[in-house]
């Protein structure tokens, strides 16, 4: 058993080396496939980040009538926080609202003067509410519509922004769903290309397989070295694709940062190097092994 295994491994390595350009071509195709694969993972991260940064910008604000006491507002806040749909609630008192307003318009003399001439604070206290999922804003708006709450409330921004919120929600959903579809389709294409390359390589060696069988080689003795070759190709392609991907990501990263602030793709790549390499290895070795097994099957019949 040990002799057989060591011979199979030995043959696999030797064949890989002696097949020269054929092995090189297989590894090259695998590298391309793995680059697509790592590209898809990175794309997923970017899309996720983009989606959540859009999601973060969506919120609804509830403005309370000036007659409402702070305790009542905090009660509403408390009750909102108990809802499972609500991610966070931020309370902005009328005083805070005023200072924010002043700060925002400090360069505009007319407005600053106008504000200072007022005796009382005209701004209303408000709550900024963020939902767990963008499609939950409608539910939250409904909740605020209930008579026991609506008596304190002057206005809810949701009604005004509903169209924009719905559109952003649709975009976020679209990006997520489209990303998945794209990932699956491209991963499938990459897998098929590798499979066909290995199949052609084995096809070119089909006569050898026939010779081995005539000499008395068992199926595992024919299959084994081919699988070993597939594994070697997978490992090499995984290592090389990471080496190729690193500088590409390093150069592209700053440009992505411009589009999506707060996203450092290269840092993500660097921090998850081990995990990404493991994925590449699993994908590469998996597809190499599987392709070899499937491709050789038809030549082992008879």
């Amino acid at each position, binding site marked *: 058993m040990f*002799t*057989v295994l060591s*011979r199979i491994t030995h043959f696999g390595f*030797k*064949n890989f080396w*002696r*097949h020269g350009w054929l092995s090189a071509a297989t590894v090259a195709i695998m590298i391309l496939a793995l680059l697509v694969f790592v590209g898809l993972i990175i794309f997923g991260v970017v899309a996720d980040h983009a989606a959540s940064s859009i999601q973060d910008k969506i919120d609804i604000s509830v403005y309370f009538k000036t007659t409402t006491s702070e305790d009542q507002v905090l009660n509403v806040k408390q009750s909102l926080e108990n809802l499972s749909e609500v991610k966070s609630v931020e309370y902005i008192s009328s005083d805070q609202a005023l200072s924010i307003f002043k700060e925002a318009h400090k360069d505009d003399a007319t407005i600053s003067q106008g504000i200072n001439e007022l005796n009382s604070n005209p701004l209303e206290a408000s709550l900024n509410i963020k939902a767990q999922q963008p499609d939950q804003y409608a539910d939250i708006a409904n909740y605020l519509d209930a008579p026991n709450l609506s008596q304190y409330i002057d206005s809810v921004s949701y009604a005004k922004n509903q169209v924009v919120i719905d559109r952003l929600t649709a975009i976020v959903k679209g990006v997520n769903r489209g990303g998945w579809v794209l990932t699956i389709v491209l991963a499938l294409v990459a897998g098929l290309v590798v499979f066909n390359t290995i199949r052609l390589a084995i096809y070119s060696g089909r*006569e*050898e397989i*026939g*010779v*081995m*069988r*005539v*000499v*008395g*080689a*068992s*199926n595992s*003795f024919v299959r084994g070295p081919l699988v070993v070759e597939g594994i070697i190709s997978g490992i090499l392609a995984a290592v090389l694709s990471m080496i190729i991907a690193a500088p590409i990501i390093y150069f592209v990263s700053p440009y992505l940062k411009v589009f999506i602030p707060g996203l450092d793709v290269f840092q993500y790549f660097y921090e998850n190097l081990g995990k990404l390499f493991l994925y590449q290895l699993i994908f590469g070795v998996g597809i190499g092994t599987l392709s070899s097994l499937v491709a050789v099957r038809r030549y082992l*019949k*008879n």
Partner: protein
Amino acid sequence: MAMVVFQGVSKIYNSHSAALEDLDFEVQPGEFVSLTGRSGAGKSTVIKLLIGEEKPTKGRVFFSQYEVNKLKDGELPAFRRHVGVIFQDFRLLPMKTAYENVAFALEVAGRPQRDIVELVPQVLDMVGLSEKSGNFPHELSGGERQRVAIARAMIHRPEIIIADEPTGNLDPLNTYEIIKLLEKINQLGTTLLLATHDKEVINTLEKRVITLDRGRIIRDEEKGKYILV
């Protein structure tokens, strides 16, 4: 006990014509039997049936203790280690050196490394290729390639060596050398079944000749001659 027995064997590839029809013959241990006949007479089919590459449509094929027509796919590799086969097109593994091609027959049989190191040089020496053991098939001449194939066929000491037109691609001098080599192997006790349509080869051998025509045996003679049919 006969080494090879064909019992009422027919092989039909398609409904129009039969490759073999009702073939009966035996080969005794230690015999050197030539199988002749023009192209398409059924020589190759006999060999394919004997090594289990094809199954007979009718009849039974025995080799030693095996009933070849009943062997399952999984049993074929082990069975084939009891026979040595030589082909017209050599069928060497192109990515292996002469030494490795010969060693391969032992490796697939799971023989230990020390046997391989000991036996392969001996057999290569016997076929006169000690000097070229490190060469790849494409670096060898036709005659040399066929000698590698013979070395590979005999390395595991099979009970029979089956040669399918082994000199078909060779010039007369190489043909002569290959046939001499086969005779030598036969003299050392291995049964030989040689399929050929080479008149010179048959006439110089002066051994048993079975002549096939359109899938039937038309002549089976001790010390036979090549007779055109």
